[in-house]
């Protein structure tokens, strides 16, 4: 038993970083950020550490040496036509989409850079006949592939290859009629069927819930649904103004009152239903508004916008972006050019410029964690991704106290 525990807890990979190293554990599944002393005990010693004693343990002081995960939009083909689709997916997909060979080459490149995880999405990637081939290739290169699916198509193709993925989440944005209200099409029964079929096949199944004005009051029931289906997690995502979501943003985005009520509601529901809850990076302003213990946030690596740092995104044609909602990176690099692009001074433009913040972010005690909130929202509502997230409760209060400096939203 001891031998089995040792084998299971064996770190799969470890990557040197300025602050020390990032080590990957299999059981429990986790990434551990360790300082240089512990990295040395694990056999890592980087020449970059010499002459930089201040960097020891300074996680967040500089961008990572490479992202920890990459979000790959394997295709932009999808028949569902959801009104808020952030990629604007269509049945025809995007021109110039990559095939399996291009994705496998890109995964080789990511593996060499030390990327730990992939989040595969679309469009609807489950319909791709080569999805299993790409996932198996990632596994062979030591990178863990994970998948989001709508559950609306491709289930028969997905079930036999489900074990290749570390975690699979099905998008469920509401129960019954609420699903249709959020998505603009009625697909709950099919998505629920996919959840049940996948759960019979595998334990690591969860749901992604895009939180909108329409389903906010139903969050407790949605979390209870996940518990009833014996899922292992619920991931709550803030609605973003990207793709078709740009036009639907005013109608679907949560109100300020809902944003303020988000964390108390979610934490109560997670306790009540005893299920693991994850929130996405864009919800950090709404979380820190309730002033949680800063040390706990640091120890859990809870950050706001970490696009172009902890994560990168790639479009169906391989175009590199800071995250899936961000415009293509300046210079139009492709995913397989990440290594050359990553270290450039101006890489990812405003997404790495969060340290030069305006008020009230500049004086916020959580700024080094929150990093100014969601830049996709700032870009849409303010016309400038460098501006503080205008839906952050602290930013709203700051602007209320200075009414002469209200900026009108810019629709783009």
């Amino acid at each position, binding site marked *: 038993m001891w031998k089995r525990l040792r084998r299971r*807890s*064996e*770190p799969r990979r*470890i*990557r*040197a*970083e*300025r*602050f*020390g190293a990032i*080590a990957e*554990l299999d059981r429990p*599944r*986790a990434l551990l*950020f360790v300082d240089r*002393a*512990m990295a*040395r*005990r*694990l056999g*890592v010693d*980087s020449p*970059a550490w010499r002459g930089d004693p201040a960097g020891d*343990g300074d*996680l967040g002081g*500089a961008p*990572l*040496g490479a992202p920890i995960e990459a*979000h790959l*939009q394997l295709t932009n083909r999808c028949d569902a036509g959801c009104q808020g689709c952030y990629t604007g997916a269509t049945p025809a997909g995007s021109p110039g989409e990559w095939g399996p060979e291009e994705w496998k080459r890109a995964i080789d490149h990511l593996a060499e*850079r*030390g990327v730990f*995880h992939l*989040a595969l*999405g*679309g469009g609807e990637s489950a319909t791709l006949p080569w999805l299993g081939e790409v996932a198996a290739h990632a596994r062979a290169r030591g990178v863990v592939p994970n*998948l*989001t699916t709508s559950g609306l198509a491709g289930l028969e193709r997905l079930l036999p290859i489900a074990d290749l*993925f570390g*975690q*699979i*989440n099905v998008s469920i944005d509401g129960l019954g009629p609420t699903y249709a209200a959020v998505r603009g099409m009625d697909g709950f029964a099919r998505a629920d069927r996919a959840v049940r079929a996948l759960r019979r096949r595998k334990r690591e199944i969860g749901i992604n819930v895009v939180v909108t004005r329409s389903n906010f009051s139903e969050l407790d029931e949605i979390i209870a649904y996940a518990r009833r289906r014996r899922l292992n997690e619920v*991931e709550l*995502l803030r609605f*973003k103004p990207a793709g078709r979501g740009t036009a639907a943003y005013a109608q679907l985005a949560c109100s300020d009152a809902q944003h303020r009520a988000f964390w108390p509601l979610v*934490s109560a529901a997670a306790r009540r239903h005893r299920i*693991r809850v*994850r*929130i*996405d*990076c*864009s919800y950090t302003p709404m979380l820190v508004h309730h002033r949680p213990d800063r040390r*706990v946030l*640091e*120890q*859990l690596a*809870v*950050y706001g916008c970490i696009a172009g740092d902890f994560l990168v995104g790639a479009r169906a044609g391989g175009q590199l972006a800071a995250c899936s909602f961000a415009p293509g990176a300046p210079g139009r690099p492709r995913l397989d050019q990440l290594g050359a692009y990553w*270290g450039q*001074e101006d890489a990812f433009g405003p997404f790495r410029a969060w340290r030069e913040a305006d008020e009230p972010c500049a004086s916020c005690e959580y700024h080094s964690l929150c990093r100014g909130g969601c830049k996709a929202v700032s870009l849409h509502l303010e016309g400038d991704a460098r501006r503080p997230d205008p839906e952050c409760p602290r930013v709203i209060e700051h602007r209320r106290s200075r009414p002469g400096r209200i900026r009108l939203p810019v629709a783009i």
Partner: protein
Amino acid sequence: MQYSPRMSRHHVLDRLSARRRRRRGRVIATRFGLNPNSSSLGVDVTFLLYGAAALSLVTPVMAALLRLRRPTTHVEAPAPKE
């Protein structure tokens, strides 16, 4: 560390403990689970429900698991510019 009679016993133990931590190293942060969401990075906030006390119990366990055996693959990512 030189002992002085003016140091309290707790002070001596604290300094010894800090020196031991420096030598053994520490886990700065832990990200639990896998993120399947291909649009943004989700973080497990379950520990926020139970606070610093629960996390302070888990972190040494994670460090111990990490020390049990050395990693199989090392990757040297180039150090980024500040």
